[in-house]
């Protein structure tokens, strides 16, 4: 087999089959709003905590959906619950309640 000087790098795609999605499904059951997000980024643009921890409800939802919980927790750490994201959301998602539900359902210590 001839070597041409480059190789195929391992895929960076996430394998959703290896992720435990039970928490996210529970979240979607309690908060049907979570599925309504269209990732427009209005919340990211207004969030006062984004300056400190990169917080954005859009990103938190995507991270949780993809099993990158650590990253979501790190971003949420600075959420001040100020409600700006609720005010600007074009889908009318009650983001404050969504964030509180995430705080209740997910657990940092509990690694599955």
């Amino acid at each position, binding site marked *: 087999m001839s070597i041409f000087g480059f190789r195929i790098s391992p895929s960076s795609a996430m394998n959703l089959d290896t992720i435990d999605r039970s928490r996210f499904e529970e979240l979607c059951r309690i908060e049907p709003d979570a599925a309504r997000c269209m990732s427009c980024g209005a919340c990211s643009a*207004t969030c*006062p905590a984004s*300056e*400190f*921890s990169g917080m954005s409800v859009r990103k938190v939802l995507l991270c949780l959906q993809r099993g990158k919980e650590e990253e979501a*927790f790190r971003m*949420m*750490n*600075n*959420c*001040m*619950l*100020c*409600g*700006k994201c*609720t*005010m*600007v*959301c074009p889908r*009318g*998602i*009650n983001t*404050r*309640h969504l964030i*509180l539900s*995430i*705080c*209740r*359902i*997910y*657990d*940092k*210590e*509990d690694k599955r």
Partner: protein
Amino acid sequence: MREIYLSGYSNFIIPFMIGMIFVLSWCAIGAVRIILQLPADDRKKFFLSLINPRIMLKNIRDWFCDCLFHVKLWKRNKLLGYMHSSIAFGWFMIIVIGHIEVFLYTPERMHQVWYPIFFRYFVAVTENTMKGSFFFFLMDFFLLVILSGIVLAIVKRIRSRFFGMRRTTRASITDLIGLYSLWSIFPLRLLAEGFTADISGGSFLTKSLNTVLHSFLSDQMNMLPTWWAYSIALCIFMCILPFSRYMHIPAEILLIPLRNAGIKVRHARKGIAKLQVYSCPGCGVCIDACPMSAVKANIKDTTVYLNRQIKRYNERRIEEISDKCLLCGKCTAVCPVGVEGDKMRIAQRSLRKYNLAPSYANIDENILISRCNKFVNTSNTNVTSSKNQKVIYFSGCMTALTPAISKATTSLLQKSGISYEIMDKDGGICCGRPMMTAGRIEQAEEMIAKNTAIIKASGADTLLLSCPICYKIFKERYDLEGIEILHHTEFFDRLINEGRLSVNKEDKKYAYHDPCELGRGCGIYDQPRNIVNMAGKLVEGEKNRKESICCGGSLGSLTLSFEKRKALTENALNNLRIASPDTIVTACPLCRSTFNRYSDIPVKDIAEILDEATMKRKR
């Protein structure tokens, strides 16, 4: 007065005594439990307040005004006030006069607690006690007062609108038993005394009833059954009292001294919060007051139903009701007994356990301080600045979404020649109030500490806020010694009075909306009105000041969805449109953006109209 029975006892007092002993022991145990549930420092405060003559005087005044005369209900509606005070004060007077009679005529019977209640059964009138006819008259008079109150109560059950109440509480089964037994006590007493009036003496009511009764019922044996019925009615009422809304009668007596001692709700279910739940008379004044009642489905989420669910330990509904509330504080403002619906809900929310707890330790406040310690020196030559005031302006998260307000505010600051600095022009830390209303007090305290450090380091002497949500928490929870905290309405009112801003009156009608957190939350009603009056013509909404209706956008509600708030906003707008204003003026960025969403007339912040009104002079 001559005694008929040597023993001073008859079997019909047994039901009364059972009820009496039951209710007294229940209340005594309850009172001790509530006092023991108070945190130790609160308990000490309470006991100290009892020996403070000033507070004790206030207690006595409140006992009379609130428990007996129902002054707050009189202010709401004369008929409603009369109905409640006639029954409460009338009953109180009958008990007092009953004891006076026993004391005067049969002092040896004072230790028999039933004697004053059934006095007329045990005594006969004699020649030398005719001077007692004064007391006989008083007894009949107050009985008549109570009976008139009961007639009104029956009318109220059928048509509550006559009493200025659109909606009333749906009575539970125990409430109904209590209600009917209360209604029957006094007619039965009249009947019983009517039968004995020829022996024991009576006045205009009982004597004439006696004559009527004797015209067709001559048998003296009718006497005993009516006294039995009267005693049983009393027994039923007293036995059902702890499980019905009538528990408010004894509970309020304890609530008044606790409130006057300055004890605050700390735990949602213990101590004073529990007492407030039991003090709720279920009158339903809060139903009409609640802004959520604009939608019929929300009626069951008002404070009166929260209290009922707490009494029933229905945890699912308690959570639901606590999370839905807008925390506008109107139920607290109108409550005749002083149940603090908003504080109880925040306390209830703070009981919830969360796995993830945000922390703000990673935020470096030095960077934030360096952004706001420069103070723009506006050298406005037109205005002579008397004192070298350094104002730090915290616009807040909500103002960041309505930049017109912060623009107008800074423009006004420049016009009046004040050196100022904007604390959060490039973002900052939230004031903590939204976190506090969600019940996460620890996190809110952390934000408070960060902001306090920033403000203190900035070197300002005045903190200016344009958002009442921030203003409330800055006033209540922040410890900013030496720094004056002002809402922009207060600040601009002061500037106008000092002559540093000259306003040109415009020919426009402005309807002023009292934001919940500014009006009911901080008691600021007059300063914004002064400003509006300077800038144009002030008109009021139908409900204003203490009773202004929440815009529906409040951050207080955790579960109310965007769509469900629309009806509330429209209801609040209709209230403001009543005097057909040209512009609706408010002093809260959140109210402004909520109203703007659905309003057909422009909605502006008070800073904006003031900025417009001062602009003309400069040109």
